[in-house]
């Protein structure tokens, strides 16, 4: 995974208390909205198709480019 370039750091000068108290995404116990997308090989996946017998790990990352 990549790191934000220094130019971007100016955009994130929020007080640390704002960042620390933030809750990201849907509440625990609820579901991520269903989706459909292609991967790097052109294979289409839905949220359902990604789930294994015990569930799944879904990672959201900033960019593979920068």
């Amino acid at each position, binding site marked *: *995974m*990549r*790191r*934000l370039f220094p130019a*971007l750091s100016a*955009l*994130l000068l*929020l007080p*640390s208390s704002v*960042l*620390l108290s*933030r809750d*990201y*995404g*849907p*509440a*625990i*116990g*609820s*579901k*991520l*909205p269903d*989706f459909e*997308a*292609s*991967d*790097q*090989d*052109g*294979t289409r*996946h839905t*949220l*359902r198709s*990604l*789930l*294994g*017998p*015990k*569930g*799944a*790990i*879904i*990672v*959201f*990352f*900033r*960019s*593979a*480019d*920068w």
Partner: protein
Amino acid sequence: MELEQNQAELRKLGLGVAAISYDSAAILRDFAARKGIHYPLLSDPDSKIIRAAGILNETVPASTPYFGIPYPGTFVLDAKGAIIAKYFEDDYKERYTSAAILVRQFGESPAASRSEVAGKQLSLVASASNSVAHPGQRVALVLDVEMKPGTHVYAPGVEGYIPIEWSIKNSAAALAHEVISPKPEILYLQAIDEKVPVLEQHFQLKRDVTFGADDKLKADLDSSGNVTVEGTLRYQACDDRICYIPQELALKWTFHYEGFDRERSPAEIMHRLK
């Protein structure tokens, strides 16, 4: 990439693995080929999925090529797709490693940076979720403690006794987070009619450590070019008759330093100003 190293382990646990970004399929294909990635990297170029998940970073101006990125993090889902855990950064400079998630979420005993320490009345194995120190990564440290039969130590925070205490020498290279300890047993001391929380037999203490910025890591390397994290474990063990002399054990975790990845996609597919 760190997730690539752990995805086989995650699959063995019955978990699907996927990563999502706002990159084009072309960028993801190039990235997967360069890095040897073997799990799905899903392309969400209009950030529809990112938006629907409620994690679009709206502080980024729409005029820059960076608009559309999420607050980075990980959702752990159960077999029905319900969210059972979320790992998002306290701060944009910090990222959980998937290995640290394996340790915290699934109770895996880590394999990296293992050392065995024998003390009086206890022995332990110190280990870490990752063997590599990468700037900004948050890794898990574990102490697997085995008490001598019949002995116990006092749970963290107990008063009137010397509790088991795990301290880490903080530095700009590595910042330790709070210790996670198991639910203690309540011991009834008949002679003095007291109930005391104790840990006995086999238990695990865990805590995360976040590595600092690249320049801080580089400034702190030892003679072998490694990052070391040092700490101590202080405790007083007792059995049902006596309490032993308090002990202090030296602890050390060693990580291989790995700097930044500044490589970009080929010019024709990289993100540009809109």
